[in-house]
């Protein structure tokens, strides 16, 4: 979809941007939703996950408070995650998070600085959820299954 609108404009600059973007995206090895091993092992739906990352769902079925971790909005892995896993765009989540934060009615997800920090946080924080470029080899982390 992103390529489609880049390629509509034949300008040289745009073409260059498209190529750069393609290189950037193709370097992404895909993305997996990961959770701390304490998270209930159920079959989740895309809608469940959208609600979780929108901070609209407070707790897991075990009663534990959901701890959400994300990378910055402009991080390629974050873009890849929102688009391919949730069929949404970063700006759609940002709209919801900023409204919660600046109205005093909620907190946004915790932002981490790098994919490595994400893996460290998910492995050490009970009831946490995030994403990673590849399945990490860590006994405290599980890939979340959803339909």
């Amino acid at each position, binding site marked *: 979809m992103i390529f489609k609108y*880049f390629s509509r404009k034949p300008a040289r600059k745009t073409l260059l941007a498209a190529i750069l973007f393609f290189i950037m995206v193709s370097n992404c090895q895909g993305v997996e939703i990961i959770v701390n091993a304490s998270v209930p092992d159920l079959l989740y739906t895309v*809608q469940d996950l959208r609600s979780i990352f*929108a901070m609209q*769902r407070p707790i897991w079925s075990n009663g534990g408070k959901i701890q959400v971790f994300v990378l910055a909005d402009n991080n390629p892995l974050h873009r890849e995650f929102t688009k391919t896993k949730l069929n949404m765009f970063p700006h*759609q989540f*940002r709209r919801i998070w900023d*409204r919660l934060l600046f109205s*005093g*009615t909620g907190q946004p997800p915790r932002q981490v600085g790098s994919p490595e920090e994400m893996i460290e946080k998910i492995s050490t924080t009970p009831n946490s959820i995030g994403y990673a470029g590849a399945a990490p080899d860590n006994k405290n982390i599980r890939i979340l299954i959803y339909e």
Partner: protein
Amino acid sequence: MNKYSFTRLALILVILISAPWANAYNLSDKAQIHGFFTQNAIHTTANQAYGNSEDSVSYKLTEAGLNLGYQPMERISFAAQGLFRQAGELDSGSLSLDYGLIDLALFQNPLGSLGVRLGRVKNPLGLYNETRDVAFTTPTIILPPGIYFDRSRSLFLSSDGGQFYMDFQLGTGRLSGKLNYGEIRNDNDEMRDAVLPLNATGDLSTQADFAGQLTYDINSGKYVAAISYADVTLDYDQGSMDRYTNGTIHFYPMVLSAQYNGDRISLTGEYLYQKNEFSNLGPLSPDGKSVSESWYVQTAYRFNYNWQLLGRYGEHYLDQDDRSGSFFKQIGLPTHMGFTKDVTLSLRWDIKPWMMIRGEYHWINGTSWLTTADNPDRSITEKHHDLFALQVAFKF
């Protein structure tokens, strides 16, 4: 532009750019600190908006906030935000507590929650009122003139009392509701000058009142529909040499909102129907009822992750039975005080997730939206005016 404001602006910019803004400050696993800063430059071809803007540039529209969220226990959290705001002659720069509350989650399950927030809570009215001072959350620098009537900003901003809230999955979407009860704040005389336009000198006092909103959204905000309602009572206490008398004003604003947030296109429409009742205010404001009306439609298009173009058209009428403003002529004021029609074009560039620049143009017909603080002599205001605004905003 005076030298002082330029130096200050430059200084603030340097500090902000050199500061480590990349992330929020996570004090611990239980607390977060966030903030924002917005500076605007406003120019108008006639009339004054946010300071001395006519044939000049006013920098007197500045907003900055710092907030803390702290959750010591799973069902109890605290949130507070301090706000600095400067807005032309209306507010020469003041600090206030924007919200400060304790949030008690009374019931939680995976499909929803229900609870109360006690303290100073923001009033939901339309899609943007709760965060109207935070540039990143608003569609434009100057908000739609009627629904986000700047002259009543202080009135509808927040309440000291509490909020009951609930949020549940319903069908394919989510239903959420907020009901506020508390004393509505009213920190300046602009609301008084809007309803009693002939040199009123007394005070409007607020009472404990209701404000609420019901929202249904599908796909985490891809489709949003909301209805907002408030019930506001104001008592007027006559001032010295006042031609208005002790009386009462009721407002019952209702806002219908609909929004679509797609990949690249966002469509928004809102409609305000506000019943007003005036009693015992004297011959210059005869007893009676009126209806204020406002609506707008707005389209935003994202070229890519960083650039967005927005277009909007909106209208506002203080009295829907007097759309030409003839009442104002009867009391010796310009008829164009009765309405505002606004065509807006806006271009937004999100340079970084924490930095945004926005420029916009407004073609405006009517002066109901202008503050009396900036335009004390309404007889010299003009019906048509163009407005240019430039904004730089930061957040962390």
